[in-house]
């Protein structure tokens, strides 16, 4: 095959077919559009909309206008610019955390199901423990001590922490799938063909896990956005202006004291809510893109 034809068949299999399947369900399509808009905004937005964080005392809490489409905050700064610039960190942390979650859950689930025996017992007890420990309170206390320790709290570290509280469900699901698939005749055939353990795990078992992995990727990015903005709203992560969670924190602080404009409460809230709705809608159909029956149509 020529390079061009290869690229074409790659795009057809990995872009065109999944999109065609997603577009069949209105909910997934709406979700896809919402998430795409957020991603495009996060990439292009900061280049177009400048962020000016210098306080303008005379312009504080101004309602939406042509000059400030979403009004101004307690220091007279443009809320719209902050919303635009607040997107990239939230998306970065969410997708990184989802990636770590999927990695942890898949590795532990496959190891537990494939190796079995004592390894399975230990890993699954561990999984059960993490399934029961409430995630957000655990994150809270880790964040408190992390703040105290003065360690640099970078986005990958936050993402890793978020993934610690969310891998267990996926690990359980993957384990029971591996246990079922391990006994399938086609695995025996592949073993007879001598294709080796690497092939069995990555080329035979893993493709069967893709629907679970995809769904859990979406669900854990939803969970990560909740936890990340929540920790910021509690002031448990280093404050950075123009971050949606930090904006919620300030909006809440002003609501309880000297009062604030509805737009300052609504802007970050809606930014988070709409993104979450988009992800939930998208996740409702994401497993279908791996369904061979639908792929073949």
């Amino acid at each position, binding site marked *: 095959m020529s390079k061009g034809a290869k690229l074409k068949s790659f795009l057809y299999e990995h872009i065109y077919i999944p999109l065609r399947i997603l577009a069949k369900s209105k909910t997934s399509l709406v979700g896809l559009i919402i998430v795409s808009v957020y991603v495009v905004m996060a990439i292009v937005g900061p280049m177009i909309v400048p962020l000016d964080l210098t306080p303008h005392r005379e312009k504080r809490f101004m309602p939406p206008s042509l000059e400030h489409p979403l009004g101004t905050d307690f220091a007279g700064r443009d809320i719209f610019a902050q919303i635009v610039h607040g997107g990239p960190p939230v998306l970065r942390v969410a997708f990184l955390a989802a990636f770590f979650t999927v990695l942890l859950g898949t590795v532990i689930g496959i190891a537990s199901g494939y190796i079995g025996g004592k390894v399975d017992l230990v890993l699954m007890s561990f999984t059960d423990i993490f399934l029961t420990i409430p995630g957000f309170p655990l994150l809270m206390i880790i964040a408190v001590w992390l703040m105290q320790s003065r360690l640099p709290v970078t986005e990958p570290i936050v993402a890793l922490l978020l993934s610690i509280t969310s891998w267990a469900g996926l690990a359980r699901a993957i384990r029971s799938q591996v246990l079922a698939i391990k006994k399938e*005749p086609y695995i025996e*055939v592949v073993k007879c063909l001598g294709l080796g353990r690497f092939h069995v795990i990555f080329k035979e078992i893993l493709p069967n896990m893709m629907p679970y992995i995809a769904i859990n990727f979406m669900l854990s990015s939803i969970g990560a956005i909740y936890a990340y903005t929540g920790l910021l709203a509690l002031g448990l992560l280093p404050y950075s202006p123009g971050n949606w969670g930090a904006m919620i924190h300030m909006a809440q602080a002003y609501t309880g004291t000297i009062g604030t404009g509805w737009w300052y409460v609504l802007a970050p809230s809606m930014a988070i809510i709409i993104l979450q709705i988009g992800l939930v809608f998208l996740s409702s159909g994401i497993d279908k893109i791996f369904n061979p*029956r639908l792929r073949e149509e």
Partner: protein
Amino acid sequence: MSVTIEAREVTKIFPVAKGIFSKKHYIRAVDRVSLGIRENEIVALVGESGCGKSTLGRLLLGLIKPTEGKILYMGKDIWSLKGREYEEFRRNAQLIPQDPYSALNPMKNILSQLTPPLLKYKIARNRKEAVKRAAELLELVGLVPPEDFFKRFTCRLSGGQLQRISIARAISVQPKFIVADEAVSMLDASLRIEILDILLNLQRKFKTAYLFITHDLAIARYFAREGRTAIMYLGNIVEIGETENVIQKPLHPYTQVLIQAVPVPDPDLAAKRGLPKLRSLEIPSLINPPPGCKFNTRCPYAEKICEEKVPELREVKGRLVACHLY
């Protein structure tokens, strides 16, 4: 002719109902079985479900390790093979499973399941050649045009088509020995002969040795007409010999009962077949098999010795039978 694969005094014990607080039980799925299959030979292995015939097949393929005894490939113990020799054995012992719908990975297209073994054993030097070879294989099992099947998934193919692909994959690495485990029992009756003929043609062409596992004597008779048939009961081979001999003149009482159980289209003929009646219809449990001959609880000819002594396979009238009657 040399023996390709051989089971020598092989026993497989499985634990059942395992738990921390409950007592472990064991079943002897295969009990001191010896069986050799020669180059280019077809052996049909017949028995009721749960008699250990699939376990024996898996033992011969090296998929499970025997508890006792040895599996020899070309005279060497397969569990002590290393490196190149092991790879050589792996390539030469293949499986065609029972259910065509689970013989192939449902999440992968057909082509991606055919090419990896071709590339692994250097049967094809590159991807392009592997694709070409895969097409030839599909043609060989009667799937034309082969390109139509490459990008398909199992969910849209029929049982017959899937079984053909499964066969194509098994022969793709040119094995010396194939275990076909109930390879046609899940197919429509009308398709069975067709698939059996494909297997027989390929067998003649490549001179492969076959262990053909089935519960259906008629199919064994058709497929192993030029080979041998072995009858298995509760983990033991009770009779083995030339297929026509075994079926026409069964010696072991269990074989006689099995053959009697095959329905005959002519009711008069069926009434005339004056074969012995079973003493009990209940199959004894594998966890607690009866002492002596395992068939003694049901055998119409059982005597005292049958409850005491395990019969060994002995040569009787040109075949091997494990029964105190002879």
